[in-house]
C-alpha cells in the first residue's frame, strides 16, 4: 500500500497555482501528475485539443487521447493503462489524463488524480477569468478584485493542504475546510456532514462554520451524494449548495453551504465549494492511510501501542521533560495464571481476556498516560509527572482491577497481576533501561507472590544478575555431578512401619555451598532444565530403591514431577525407561504433582497421567489444600494419594479448626478410596492428633529427617521391626 498520497498534492498545488498562464499550469500539472503516480505519460484535453502532452516523445496519439481510450496505443511504447479525470464537474470542462505501462491505476491513485484535476481546473478557470477581464479592458479595480479572489482561493486551499500534509488532527483539518469555505464564499454557514457506518447511513455534522442553523439541509446533502455532483437550490431569500465528498470512490458525505442572496449570484461558487469538498476527501483518505500506518505500531488484540511504539513514546517523553519537576514512571504488568486460561479456554478467549485486561488497565490511568502491550501477557504503563507514591498507587489500582473476575465464555475467570515499578531519576536514562528495571522489579513481585507491587531498587539488579549466574551454574551442575538425593521415609502412622521413601534433590554447588531447592527449582523450571534434572532424579532414585527392595521388598518410591516434565510428550516413555533400567516395578512408584501443575495444563496432564496409570504408576497430589482443591479433578484424574500440606499441621498444637480441615481431607480420601499422607509432622502431639483422625501415613522430622542413601538402611531395619515411634534423627 502507498503511504505517499497526502504530501504530494501540496507540491502539485503550489506549482500549478504559481503558474501565470494556462500553458505553464498545464505543463506543470502533467509533469507532476505523471511523476506522482509513476506514469510514463500525461496530457490535458481542453476544448477538444491535446495540451501539454508529456512523455510521448515525438509522436503524440492525439486521436486516442481525444477518444479517451482506456488502453492507449503509443508508438514504440505499446498499450498504456489510462486514467482520465474531469477538470470540473464533467469532462466538458476538460480532463487530465495519465498513462502507465506497468499496471492499472488503483482506486487510491484515481482518487488522488481527481484531487489534482480539480485543482488544475480551478487554476485554469482563475487564469482564464483574469485574462478575460484584462482583454475586456475592464476597469483595473475589477481586475484587481478577480485576481484577489483567485489569490484568496488559492491561499485558503493551500493552507488546508498544508494542514493535511503536516498530518494535523482530522477535526482541525475539517474545521479549516468549513471555516475557509465560509470565509471565501461569504456563506452564512458551511457544514460538513458525514455518513455513519451501518445501513441507515445517518448523516452527522462533523464540522461547521458560520451561524449555526436549525436545519442542516439533510436532503441537499443526500441529493449531492446520490448524484455524485454539486447541487444548488434556491430558498426564499438565499441559496444552498451541496458538494459530495468521497473516499476512494465511495460517497461518504457532503459539504453544504448556505449563501445569502439569489441563486444566480452563486454560479461560480459551485466549483469553489467542490474544491473544498475535494480537500475533505483528501483529508479523510489520508486519515485512513494513517490508520493503516497505525496498525503497524499497535497490537491488534488490544489496540494498544506495541513495544516498539511504547519505547518510541517513552524516549520522546524522556528527552523532553524536566527531571526535577517531571519524574516519569513506568509500570511493568505481568498477568498471573493467564497461560492456564489461554490453554484451557483457547486462544480466542485468551485474546478476549487480554482486550478486557487492557480496558481495565486503561481505566486505572489518566488519558495522558500511555498503556502498551509488550507481548504475551505483559503490559507496560508510562505515567507522566508521577512520583513514586502516585505510581505505586496506580499499580495497586491495576492489581485490584485485574483481580475482579472477568466474564468470558459464560463463566467467571479469575486472574491476577504482578507489577514492577521503575522511576526515572536522571535525564540520561534510556527507555529500555527503565523498562528493564521495571521488568526486574516485576520479576521480584512475582516471586513474592501473586498480586504484589514492587518498586525497583538497584540491589534488585544485582539480584537479577545473581539469578542469571545461578542459572548459568545450574546448567553445568548436572554434568558436573553436583546434585545428590536424600530420602525421607513415609510412615504408616498406625504401625510406625516404613511404606516408602520420597526422593528429595540436593544441590552442593562448589561456589555457593548447599543451594535450597526453593531457590533453584523455579529457575530449573523456567529454563526447561527441570526435564533433564527430573529424569536424573527418577533414574537415580529408582536404582536406589530397587537395591533396597532386595532387603525391603515392599518399599515404594515417591518422586516429585514438574509441570514441564508432565507436558513433555516423551514423559511417559522416559518414566518407563528409567524404571525398566533400574528393574523397579511401576506399581512401586508414585509420582507427586502439585495442584497448580494439574490446573495449568489440565488436558495435557490428563492424557499423560492416564498413560502412566495404565502402565501401573501411582499418582499423588502434593500440597493438597493450598490451591484449588477441586473435587472435580479428584474424580476425573487417576489419583491414588493425597498429601496434606504441611501448612495445616505446622502449629505446635493443632487448633480445632486445623483438626476439622485435616479431618475433612482424610474423610475425603477415605470416600474416594485415596491414601492420605500428612506432611510436616514435627512433634508427638501432631503425630497423635493425626493418628486419632485415622490419617493413614505421615512424613516429617519427628518421624524421620531426610537422609543420605547410605544412612537410611539402619532406620529401615528398625522401622521394619515395627517400632511405633521409630525415629532416626529426631
Amino acid at each position, binding site marked *: 500500500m*502507498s503511504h505517499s498520497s497526502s504530501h504530494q498534492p*501540496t507540491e502539485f498545488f503550489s506549482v500549478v497555482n504559481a503558474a501565470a498562464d494556462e500553458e505553464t499550469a498545464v505543463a506543470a500539472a502533467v509533469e507532476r501528475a505523471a511523476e506522482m503516480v*509513476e*506514469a*510514463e505519460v500525461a496530457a490535458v484535453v481542453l476544448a477538444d485539443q491535446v495540451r501539454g502532452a508529456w*512523455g510521448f516523445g515525438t509522436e503524440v496519439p492525439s486521436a486516442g487521447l481525444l477518444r479517451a481510450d482506456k488502453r492507449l496505443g503509443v508508438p514504440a511504447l505499446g498499450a498504456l493503462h489510462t486514467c482520465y479525470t474531469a477538470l470540473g464537474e464533467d469532462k466538458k470542462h476538460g480532463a487530465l489524463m495519465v498513462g502507465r505501462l506497468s499496471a492499472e491505476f488503483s482506486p487510491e491513485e484515481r482518487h488522488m488524480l481527481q484531487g489534482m484535476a480539480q485543482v488544475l481546473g480551478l487554476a485554469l478557470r482563475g487564469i482564464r477569468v483574469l485574462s478575460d477581464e484584462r482583454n475586456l479592458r475592464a476597469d483595473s479595480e475589477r481586475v484587481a478584485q478577480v485576481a484577489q479572489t483567485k489569490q484568496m482561493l488559492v491561499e485558503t486551499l493551500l493552507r488546508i493542504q498544508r494542514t493535511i500534509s503536516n498530518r494535523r488532527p482530522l477535526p482541525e483539518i475539517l474545521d479549516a475546510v468549513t471555516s475557509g469555505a465560509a470565509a471565501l464564499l461569504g456563506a452564512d454557514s458551511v457544514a460538513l456532514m458525514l455518513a455513519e457506518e451501518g445501513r441507515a447511513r445517518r448523516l452527522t455534522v462533523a464540522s461547521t462554520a458560520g451561524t449555526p442553523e436549525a436545519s442542516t439541509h439533510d436532503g441537499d446533502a443526500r441529493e449531492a451524494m446520490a448524484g455524485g455532483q454539486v447541487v444548488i437550490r434556491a430558498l426564499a431569500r438565499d441559496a444552498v449548495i451541496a458538494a459530495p465528498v468521497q473516499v476512494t470512490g465511495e460517497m461518504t458525505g457532503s459539504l453544504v453551504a448556505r449563501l445569502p442572496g439569489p441563486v444566480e449570484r452563486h454560479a461560480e461558487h459551485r466549483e469553489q465549494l467542490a474544491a473544498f469538498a475535494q480537500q475533505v476527501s483528501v483529508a479523510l483518505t489520508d486519515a485512513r492511510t494513517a490508520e493503516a500506518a497505525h496498525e*503497524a505500531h499497535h497490537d491488534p488484540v488490544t489496540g494498544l501501542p506495541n513495544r516498539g511504539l511504547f519505547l518510541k513514546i517513552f524516549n520522546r517523553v524522556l528527552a523532553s521533560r524536566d527531571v526535577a519537576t517531571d519524574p516519569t514512571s513506568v509500570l511493568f504488568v505481568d498477568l498471573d495464571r493467564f497461560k492456564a486460561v489461554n490453554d484451557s479456554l483457547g486462544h480466542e478467549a485468551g485474546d478476549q481476556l487480554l482486550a478486557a485486561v487492557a480496558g481495565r488497565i486503561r481505566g486505572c490511568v489518566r488519558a495522558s498516560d500511555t498503556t502498551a502491550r509488550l507481548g504475551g501477557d505483559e503490559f507496560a504503563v508510562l505515567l507522566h509527572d508521577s512520583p513514586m507514591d502516585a505510581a505505586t498507587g496506580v499499580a495497586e489500582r491495576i492489581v485490584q482491577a485485574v483481580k475482579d473476575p472477568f466474564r468470558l465464555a459464560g463463566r467467571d475467570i479469575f486472574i491476577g497481576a504482578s507489577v514492577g515499578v521503575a522511576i526515572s531519576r536522571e535525564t540520561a536514562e534510556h527507555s529500555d533501561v527503565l523498562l528493564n528495571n521495571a521488568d526486574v522489579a516485576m520479576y521480584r513481585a512475582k516471586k513474592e507472590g501473586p498480586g504484589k507491587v514492587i518498586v525497583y531498587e538497584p540491589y534488585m539488579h544485582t539480584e537479577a544478575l545473581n539469578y542469571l549466574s545461578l542459572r548459568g551454574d545450574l546448567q553445568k551442575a548436572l554434568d558436573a555431578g553436583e546434585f545428590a538425593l536424600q530420602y525421607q521415609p513415609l510412615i504408616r502412622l498406625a504401625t510406625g512401619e516404613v511404606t516408602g521413601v520420597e526422593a528429595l534433590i540436593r544441590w552442593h554447588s562448589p561456589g555457593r555451598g548447599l543451594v535450597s531447592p526453593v531457590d533453584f527449582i523455579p529457575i530449573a523450571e523456567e529454563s526447561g532444565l527441570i526435564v533433564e534434572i527430573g529424569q536424573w532424579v527418577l533414574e537415580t532414585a529408582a536404582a536406589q530403591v530397587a537395591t533396597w527392595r532386595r532387603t525391603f521388598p515392599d518399599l515404594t518410591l515417591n518422586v516429585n514431577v514438574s509441570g514441564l516434565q508432565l507436558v513433555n510428550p516423551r514423559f511417559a516413555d522416559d518414566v518407563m525407561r528409567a524404571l525398566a533400567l533400574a528393574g523397579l516395578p511401576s506399581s512401586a512408584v508414585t509420582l507427586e504433582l502439585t495442584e497448580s501443575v494439574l490446573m495449568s495444563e489440565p488436558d495435557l496432564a490428563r492424557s499423560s497421567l492416564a498413560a502412566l496409570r495404565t502402565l501401573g504408576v501411582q499418582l499423588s497430589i502434593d500440597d493438597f489444600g493450598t490451591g484449588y482443591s477441586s473435587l472435580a479433578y479428584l474424580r476425573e484424574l487417576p489419583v491414588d494419594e493425597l498429601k496434606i500440606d504441611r501448612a495445616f499441621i505446622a502449629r505446635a498444637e493443632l487448633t480445632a479448626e486445623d483438626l476439622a480441615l485435616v479431618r475433612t481431607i482424610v474423610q475425603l480420601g477415605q470416600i474416594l478410596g485415596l491414601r492420605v499422607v500428612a506432611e510436616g509432622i514435627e512433634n508427638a502431639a501432631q503425630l497423635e492428633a493425626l493418628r486419632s483422625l485415622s490419617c493413614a501415613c505421615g512424613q516429617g522430622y519427628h518421624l524421620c529427617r531426610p537422609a543420605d542413601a547410605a544412612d537410611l538402611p539402619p532406620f529401615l531395619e528398625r522401622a521394619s521391626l515395627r517400632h511405633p515411634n521409630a525415629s532416626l534423627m529426631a
Partner: protein
Amino acid sequence: MQTPHRWFGAGHSIAADSAKAGAEAAASAVGGRTPAVVFVFASHQHDLPALLMAVRDEAGPNALVVGASTLGELAYDGASAGGVSVAALGGEGFTVRAKVAHIGDAGHRRAGAEAAEAMAGVTSPHSVLILLADGLSGDPHEVVRGAYSVLGAVVPLVGGFAGGGSDKSRTFQFIGDTVYTDAVVGVALGSDAPIGIGVAHGWHRVEPPMIITSSRGGRIFELDDEPALDVLLRRNDLAGQRAADLFHGVDALQALGLSRRNGEDIRVIHDGDDVDRSILGMSDVPQGALCWLMEADHDALIRGATDSCREALDGLGGKVPLGVLAFDCGARRGRLGPDGMQEEMAAMRSALGSTPYAGFYTAGEIARVRGALGTHHLTLVTLALA
C-alpha cells in the same frame, strides 16, 4: 564472446601519470580496434586534458570520446580511487551520437533537454540515452526532466552525476578532447540488439516510519515533531552528541527512504546542524511525507550489485552480453570500504561472468526505465549491451 562485427572492451589503470594512465586503460579497452565510442571515467585528480590526449591516441581520430570525473572507478580487475576506467565499443549495428550542453544560467532542465537532442537521427531498434552530468547546483532531477521532455518514455535514460574533489566545487564532463565543467553530456546509443538496464540498491526499511513534519528543500527540521538531528542521533545510539559524531566520514552516512509505488526513493542525509537541529540531504524532501530510516548491511549491499547486474543481463532477451557500463553510488563505496569495494567487484564479475565492464562511483545515479522519475541514490545502475 563477441561476434567479429561488434565488440566491447574495457581497461583500467591506476598509474599516477595521467598520460600513462589514459594510454594504459584505453589501449586495453580498444585493443587495436576502431571504436565508435570510448567512455572515459577518470578521477578529477588527473591532468584530464593530458589523459584525454593519450586516450585519443589509442582511440584514433574518428572515435567519439566522452566521459566524466569520478568518485572512484569500477573495473573488471578491481575498483580504484584516483584511477581511470575506460570502455570502448564498436562494430556493426551500433549508432552513437553525443551532445554537450552547458548548465549555467539556463539551468539543469534546459541542459538536460539539449543533451537529449543527441538522440536526433538515431533510428536503431533499441536505444538509450546516457547522461553524464554535473549535479552540484540546483535540482539534479531537472536534468532528467529536461531529457524526458524531449524523448518521452520511448527512450530509457541511464548515467550518473560526475564526482568532484573534496571541496565539491567542480566536476568535469568530457566530450571530444575537451574537458567541460558545469555541463551535461548526452550520449545517444542505438543498437540492433536489445539493451538491458539493472537498478538495485540492497537497502531496507527500519520500522517504524516517521513523518517529515517540517522541511524546506533538502533540509529536514523535524521528524514526528521532534528535531530531526535529535531523532537521527538517538536512533544511532548517539543521543546527546554532536552532528559531527554522526556524519563522521562517508561510511557514516544516513539514508532516508520515501515511499514510492515500486519501493523506496532513497535520499542520502549527509550533514546536520547542531544549532537549529536540522539535517541536510542532497535533494528535496517533501514536508508531510512518510519516511523510513534505511539500513543496509554489508551483505545486502553486495547482493544489490549482483541483482543489478542480473537484471541488466535479463534485459538482453537471451542474447550474449558484450559488455556493461556501471554507475555506482559514491556513498555505497564509502559504506563498503576498500575491501568491500573489491568484494562488490567480485560480485559483479561473478554475476557477469567474463563480460567486461567499466564504470564509476557517482554523486547520484540516473536510470529511467519505467515511469517518469529517474534519479537515484545509493544505487548501482548497470547498462548491458549485446
